[in-house]
């Protein structure tokens, strides 16, 4: 039995919002693989919950008329990995979330919960950063759309005002079309572990596949929140691909990151991972895009 003061099962997004307005201390529970554990640990003991788990309107992946990918927040990791739209257009996101926890966690864990927790290690977050994803937030006054980089306010803090709910994640057509990406999670175990560092890269090559038309590099656990590396990206953008360039992009990534020492790994080790994983993910992305280095 969980130490819960009250739990309300929302009937719709609107119903959830109005219940949250009436109960300002209530916490939203989606799949529960973080919330229920915090309750068990005592951190959230005695809390009031609003469950949105049964809102099927918030489940699934769609390709919009404009060709954008709309990911609804309650879509589980395993459903994202197996979704035909994700597989076809942003396969790297499916591969990234296939590295979360274990099979049972990937069946219950939701992509919305993964980013609303605001943790830097979220396996979906760096790839969503790398694709300039936008998030749709719904409250009593309607919806607002913000870039994912503005959604993260600080460790464990996201831009959700009281009684607001994340209702969609968009990856725009212009952001994914022609791009090929790779995510590398470094962790001590292959399963049931949190990333020591995560690196998500995607590239668009020129027509002759000899140079980077565009390049995007994002990290998890390289700072208090997931982040992009503008220095590494500009070190590569528009340049001819060769081994030296890849080395210099790896080095340039070090200018933007600020990892910390934790019991999992030291700052120095994480810096080494930033450089090395950037190079490996870049090479993999180049190969996927049909280029060579």
């Amino acid at each position: 039995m969980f130490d819960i003061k009250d739990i309300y099962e929302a009937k719709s997004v609107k119903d959830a919002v109005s219940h949250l307005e009436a109960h300002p201390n209530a916490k939203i529970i989606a799949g529960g693989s973080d919330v229920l554990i915090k309750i068990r640990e005592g951190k959230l003991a005695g809390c009031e919950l609003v469950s949105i788990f049964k809102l099927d309107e918030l489940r699934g992946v769609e390709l919009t008329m404009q060709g954008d990918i709309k990911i609804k927040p309650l879509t589980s990791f395993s459903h994202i990995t197996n979704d035909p739209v994700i597989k076809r257009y942003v396969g790297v996101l499916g591969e990234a979330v296939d590295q979360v926890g274990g099979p049972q966690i990937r069946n219950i864990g939701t992509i919305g919960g993964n980013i609303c927790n605001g943790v830097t290690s979220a396996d979906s977050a760096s790839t969503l950063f790398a694709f300039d994803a936008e998030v749709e937030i719904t409250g009593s006054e309607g919806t607002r759309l913000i870039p994912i980089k503005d959604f993260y306010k600080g460790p464990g803090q996201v831009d959700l005002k009281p009684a607001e709910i994340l209702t969609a994640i968009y990856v725009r057509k212009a952001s994914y079309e022609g791009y090929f990406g790779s995510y590398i999670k470094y962790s001590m175990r292959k399963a049931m572990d949190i990333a020591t560092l995560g690196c998500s890269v995607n590239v668009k090559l020129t027509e002759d596949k000899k140079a980077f038309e565009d390049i995007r590099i994002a990290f998890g656990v390289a700072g208090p929140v997931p982040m992009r590396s503008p220095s590494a990206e500009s070190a590569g953008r528009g340049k001819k691909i060769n081994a030296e360039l890849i080395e210099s992009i790896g080095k340039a990534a070090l200018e933007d990151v600020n990892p910390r020492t934790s019991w999992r790994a030291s700052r120095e080790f994480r810096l080494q991972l930033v450089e090395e994983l950037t190079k490996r993910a870049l090479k993999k992305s180049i190969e996927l895009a049909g280029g060579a280095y």
Partner: protein
Amino acid sequence: MEKVLIRFTLNGKKVTSAIDPRWSLADLLRGGEHKHTGTKKSCEVGECGACTVIINDETYNSCIYLAIWADGKSIRTIEGLTGENGELSDIQQAFVDEGAIQCGFCTPGFIMSSLPILESGREYTRDEIRKLLSGNLCRCTGYKNIIDAVEKTMKARLEKKQQL
């Protein structure tokens, strides 16, 4: 807290349960009127997989699944695998034969996690089996015998299917 009524299918049978909304599904299965104590509770934070059950064809840790969410769902537990007179199913027998059981506490969870592999009708590599069982912990066997049991049952079922 006031009890709520939920309806769900348990191992193929339609059932109704009055539950405390604070219960996990593991609480409901073990402690409710069903007394399905084959589902084990161990870490209770979704790390060890001992409480794994199948909900609508997918594996879940029942310790971190709220019982109220079970309303309308089809749930399978280890109790649903044995025959009418308690005969073991092929996968249970394979666990016995391969020495995949020592203390046995993790066994129901491992067997439930193996069902999507066995029922998919496709052949998985040992590495794929390892990945699909990576949400379950065993502190006795060292895993090799567990993977052997699942692989053996998978191959036997595929062979049987081909003969039909």
